[in-house]
């Protein structure tokens, strides 16, 4: 049998096959899936219209529902979308429902926190950043509303077996260098189509030793290089994390020795430096050491989203700000990505430290990352953001400029008032 990659083994397992070949199309059984508030109302209507007024989802235990994009409601229509979700959860007996309230948060973060993502499983979401789940050795991928509606009805979806790019990283990252810097460097080097339709498989001792949340940051942004999924073998830390909350037994997968990658990219961790993606592309990446000389003034620093507002991300910001105050003329918005993280930050005194430094803490949600509400920039304003995309208009105003950086770069920039 031809050697298989871990991604291939997951797809083969759920397609009822021993092995698969790159390029073939499979009918894959889905282990877990979710949708969220901007999508559910339309999905619900189409679901009943397509499959009958009394149609039932294939398995209510394998579906999660989240309110994260349009909460708290900015207007009556946003609230209507949340109410449609209340109705659908009740109609279909979906228990993994996280409405605005004490246990809500950004879908990808809550999916992991609540034990919905398990090693060796196929996990889909109606959100492109569903690639995050590779941090736990799962096949995580984003799909559209109609794809998900069909998954809700059948429990299956078609997938083309991808080729695999190996990104191998060895050594120890320098002080102040984070996973975000690695992924920005990678996207800058291979471009926004560098991994189109392919898997990015991360290997090396840097990855094995990385914190769970940093692994999530790496996998989260592979979609910015066009990847179908990002994946890693299960590390001891990632295993400990999933075992706490796992809802089912699980079986991790490893890539076979001798597997032929389509491409291999090797980094030495010591060579990686802080990086920033400049407007208007996540691939327009430059080292902070070069940008610093340009003294690029920013009016807003945004710490938020599924990419850059996990516990460690915000703790790094607080640690770097400690005892000092942010620059005059700069707003620092911190949006914890879940209520669980928010509570941990409060309990650990981190919220107080951020407040003392001049930060404003907003409630969890997708918020300014995608420009629908909260933190929209003015014309010609610049923002250094720990989020994932900086396309023209992404943060709500096509005349604004967004720079993507790590939480450490965000803290330095907030203190300096310019990209630092």
């Amino acid at each position, binding site marked *: 049998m031809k050697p298989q990659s871990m991604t291939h083994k997951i797809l083969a397992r759920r397609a009822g096959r021993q092995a698969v070949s790159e390029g073939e199309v499979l009918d894959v059984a889905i282990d877990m899936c979710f949708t969220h508030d901007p999508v559910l109302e339309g999905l619900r209507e189409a679901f009943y219209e397509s499959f009958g007024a009394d149609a039932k989802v294939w398995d209510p235990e394998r579906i999660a529902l989240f309110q994260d994009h349009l909460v708290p409601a900015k207007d009556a229509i946003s609230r209507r979308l949340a109410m449609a979700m209340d109705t659908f959860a009740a109609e279909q007996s979906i228990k993994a429902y996280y409405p605005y309230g004490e246990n809500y948060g950004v879908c990808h973060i809550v999916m992991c926190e609540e034990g919905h993502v398990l090693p060796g499983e196929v996990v889909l979401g109606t959100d492109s950043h569903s690639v995050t789940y590779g941090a736990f050795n799962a096949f995580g991928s984003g*799909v*559209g509303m109609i794809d998900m509606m*069909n998954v809700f009805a059948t429990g299956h979806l078609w997938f083309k077996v991808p080729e695999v790019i190996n990104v191998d990283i060895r050594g120890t990252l320098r002080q102040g260098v984070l996973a975000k810097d690695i992924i920005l460097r990678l996207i800058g080097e291979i471009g926004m189509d560098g991994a189109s339709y392919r898997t990015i498989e991360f290997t090396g001792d840097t990855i094995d030793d990385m914190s769970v949340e940093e692994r999530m940051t790496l996998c989260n942004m592979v979609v910015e290089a066009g990847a179908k999924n990002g994946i890693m073998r299960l590390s001891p830390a990632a295993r400990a994390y999933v075992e706490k909350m796992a809802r089912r037994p699980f079986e991790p997968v490893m890539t076979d020795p001798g597997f032929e990658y389509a491409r291999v990219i090797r980094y030495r961790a010591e060579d990686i430096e802080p990086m920033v993606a400049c407007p208007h592309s996540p691939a327009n990446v430059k080292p902070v050491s070069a940008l610093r000389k340009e003294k690029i003034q920013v009016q807003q620093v945004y710490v938020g989203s599924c990419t850059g507002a996990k516990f460690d991300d915000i703790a790094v910001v607080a640690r770097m700000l400690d005892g000092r105050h942010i620059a005059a003329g700069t707003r620092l918005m911190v949006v914890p990505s879940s209520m669980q993280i928010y509570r941990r930050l409060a309990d650990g005194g981190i919220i107080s430290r951020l407040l003392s430094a001049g930060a404003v803490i907003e409630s969890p949600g997708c918020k300014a990352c995608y420009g629908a509400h909260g933190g929209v920039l003015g014309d010609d304003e610049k923002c250094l953001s720990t989020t994932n995309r900086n396309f023209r208009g992404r943060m709500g105003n096509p005349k604004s400029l967004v720079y993507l950086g790590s939480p450490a770069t965000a803290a330095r920039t907030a203190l300096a008032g310019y990209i630092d």
Partner: protein
Amino acid sequence: MELIRGKAFHCGDFVNTDVMSPGRFEPYTGPNHLASIALIDYESPVPFVQPGEKRSEFTVIFGGIEFGCGSSRETAPQALHYAGARVVVAWSFARIFYRNCINMGLILPIELKHPFGPEVLGEDVVVDVEARTIDVKGRLLAFPAFGPVTNIIEAGGLTKLNQQAMTRGATA
């Protein structure tokens, strides 16, 4: 299958779903609204949809590399469709956008390294899906078969394909 006729629009590389249907317009949807914002943040000499209009004068979009990259939002292909686009011919597609096009059955995504630049804007185009050709003012291009997703395209989208399978299952 009928011929698809209309005027050509031109886009560069990496046209993303944020410029096709920006997040700032959420939660507003509906055909007229989505049509009016189609490609609104994409910078081009001629807008895809004129300000205040709900229809585009263009039916076939010629794009470059990784057309439709970014968010998984289905409002992106919907916006193009409601504005009147029927075909996107691109050097390559971002995978979620491609899936959405095939599975929703609203836009035909043709992957082809076409030779056209900005000068193609406004030219008359005829797409013959059955013969797999694109005629741009007499210049004939052939495009490859859709391979494993042909059955989804022929059914009119993934939902119709699954409905057919369920009906067959129920009567079998």
